[in-house]
């Protein structure tokens, strides 16, 4: 149902995006696709999991798998607590969390103002990003949670070989 909403907004309706900060980048996700934003949470690391899996966190009596957006972008990992944005799918079967550095305010955009991904993007970014909006402060990259699901990431084959140093530099939360 939520995905149906998403496609309807593409037709030109005003859209509200929740802004997310990761590294120096600003990203946005349709607020209607977000189930909940958890405050600072330290995921429990899962050994042998793919690099983009940040770990698991307790969530309303369940165990929620979280995806590390920094790992997907190839950035150094942060040590310690992070923000977790929780997403559901239509049937609540693939609930997952996205670990970001911080969650900002809600930004209203016109869906028609969306610029498609540039062909110059690397294949991973092309897979992750869903276009961008030009804001006075810079670009806001739109994300589609469906492309961030662990099952999708495992299936697309672009992130299986992701290698990074687990011991990242400690960055202050902004």
């Amino acid at each position, binding site marked *: 149902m939520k995905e149906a909403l998403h496609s309807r907004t593409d037709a030109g309706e005003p859209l509200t995006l929740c802004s997310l900060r990761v590294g120096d980048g600003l990203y946005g996700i349709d607020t209607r696709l977000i189930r909940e934003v958890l405050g600072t949470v330290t995921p429990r690391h899962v050994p*042998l999991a793919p690099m983009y*899996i940040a770990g698991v966190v307790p969530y309303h009596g369940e*165990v929620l798998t979280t995806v590390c957006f920094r790992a997907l972008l190839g950035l150094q990992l942060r040590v310690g607590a992070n923000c977790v944005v929780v997403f559901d799918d239509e049937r609540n079967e693939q609930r997952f969390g996205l670990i970001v550095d911080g969650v900002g305010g809600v930004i209203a955009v016109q869906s028609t103002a969306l610029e498609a991904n540039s062909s110059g993007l690397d294949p991973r970014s092309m897979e992750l990003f869903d276009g961008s909006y030009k804001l006075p402060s810079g670009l806001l990259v739109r994300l589609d949670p469906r492309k961030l699901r662990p*099952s999708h990431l495992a299936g697309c084959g672009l992130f299986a070989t992701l290698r990074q140093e687990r011991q990242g530099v400690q960055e202050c939360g902004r």
Partner: protein
Amino acid sequence: MVERWRPDKGKVEDLTKEFLAESQEGLERMELCLTELEKRPDDAELVAEVYRAVHTIKGTTGFLGFGRLERLSHAGESLLGALRDGKLAVTARQVDGLLQLMDGLRSILLLIESRGTEGQRSTDDDRALIELLAELKLEVGETSASPPPATQNQDAYQPVSSPDACVPVPLTALSMQDKTLRINVEVLNRLMNLVGDLVLTRNQILRCTPDAQNFPALARRLDSVTAELRESVMRARMQPVGHLFRKFPRMVRDLAKTCGRQIRIEFEGQETGLDKSLLEAVRDPLTHAVRNAADHGIEPPEERVKAGKPVEGLVRLRALHQSGSVIIEVIDDGAGISTSRVLAKAMELDLVTPEQAASMSQREALQLIFVAGFSTAIQVTNISGRGMGMDVVRSNVEKVGGSVEVESRVGVGTTVRMRVPLTLAIIPALVVESGGECFALPQNALVELVYVPRRDVEQAVERMGTTKFYRLREGLLPLVWLDRLLGIEQNQSAEQQDLYIAVVESEGRRFGLVVDGLKAPEEIVVKPLSAELREIGVFSGAAVLGDGTLALILDVAATGARAGMRPAEEAGNIAGVQLAPPDTPRIELESSMVIYETGKHGPVKDRNLEQRAMPLSAVERIESVPLSAIEYAGGRPVLQYRGELIPLEDEGEVLSERIPHVGTATDHVANHDGETATVLICLRPEAQRTRRVGLVVRSVLDVSAGTLLAANATVCDEQLALVKERVTTLHRGFAQQADGPLNAVLREVA
């Protein structure tokens, strides 16, 4: 015109749901009785039971306005009435007709459940069946319902021409019944009382401050009520496995008929309890396994005769409890699975290379039948063995945290063994630490714990090739460092640390899991992991610990497999790594004893300390119990333990030494707050059941084997053994069991 009274819609819906659940139960009984009736056509009680089931359905249908169901059940009731009154004799044709009636009734019930109506399409017409039942009523019973002898029915043994001939009975169709559970009102009352206790305790806790004098007592009370409540809910959810088994006689009967076999089905352990949700989860895998046993396992009669076997094949379903799990076995005395043909097929399908196939043990080769698509291919090429669905069997059993294995001997038969946990929800586990992270180790896989101080590590750990071993009593125990296996980085090298070895065993793999530290044992609530994390293979779930952190639950069998551990019977073949003599495969476990210290009356207590032992297999848990939690009934110490009142045996008078004067209950709590006693929670087999008793000891010393000393009445009239060069008295209570575990120990040690 008189208008027919109709109850309101909501009430009808409730009544319909109740009617569906009851009718489906009735049809289950009917199915069982009809398959029995074929064997015992003269049993009037069976006919009466079938009559009652159909009569009950008919009686309610009129009220609920299900005309189609009413007409069909009426036709069946007429025939059954004639059979019950002795006007007709039961014949095979009539049993067939009644089974068709049952299928017809069941399909209408399913329609009502799914659509709310009985169905009006042309395919939903029952005229043919009603005519058949009327025709059967006019027949004079001449032939017996028992199947004719093989020699008179050669046509039945012709190969099945159509692949659809062996159509499975839709066992999974009983959805309304699956969603409901009958609970004794007594159990509900008990639950309600416990909830009342829980609310009361909560109110008291809310009113008091953490430093209040009665806070520890309230916390203990909360603990006790919670444990009791949990136990009661789990018991309420337990259903006998027999509920599942009773669907199979009909299925096996139909398969036998269509596939030209003669098959007898037997049950064992039907009373074994299993959580309701797990019972549903194993329904499909069990159906696959039974169908395969009947369809592919049991040979055609002529082949059985040639092989010198009875014409009638046997499929046996067996259920039993085993160390926190329920084992369900499907055993057939059929042709067995030829491993050479399985391997040939696996090579043909590029699943294994010829080199791998050559090095595979029989056990490994047999596991190939669980690979998806493998078994179907076997069936197509008519290799004797298991048919399609074994991959489904395995994946379904694994979904609920179970495992499945197969054993087979060509010409003798096959056993498919499913192991499922007693409950999905809560399991006892030991929390261990490795690489700074916590992991939960299920207690049912834990055999014992070994601590090796840092100074002894070099001597205690031996190396053979790339594998390290610890010498544990009779044999070498392969060691697996958990942090290395999981790729967790360590700041300190293993040689610089004390060794904590958790000796674990699962699916025939026994090894020592080396961890950095042991934390408290906990009862953990199992939470499933997402599919991506399950795929890693070594974690069966996660749990929130008492301190609020998350721990991953280790799948011991998968951990062993990942570390390259092989099942014991295969490991025994590896040169130099023989864990136990080949003729006594279980000697190591059976001969392990818990060694403890206790004291007896004497002028100087400390000089009268005595080393005693009892079989490890008899000890369920070792608990540190606050003295204030020990109560007295009839002058004897008792302990409220997990919803059960267990007697305590203070054989060394440890309690009487620490609690010399028993005053009022309040004095007792106040005087001994903070002090604890070590209690071995033991299982003592008695005439009818296993009884739990608590043995109060001074301290637990070790787990070890020993050498039995010859009886010498002049020294002592108890059974003595030498354990680590110290005289040890074997616990009399367990030594007296004629077939008890200690006698097994004694024989082995002797």
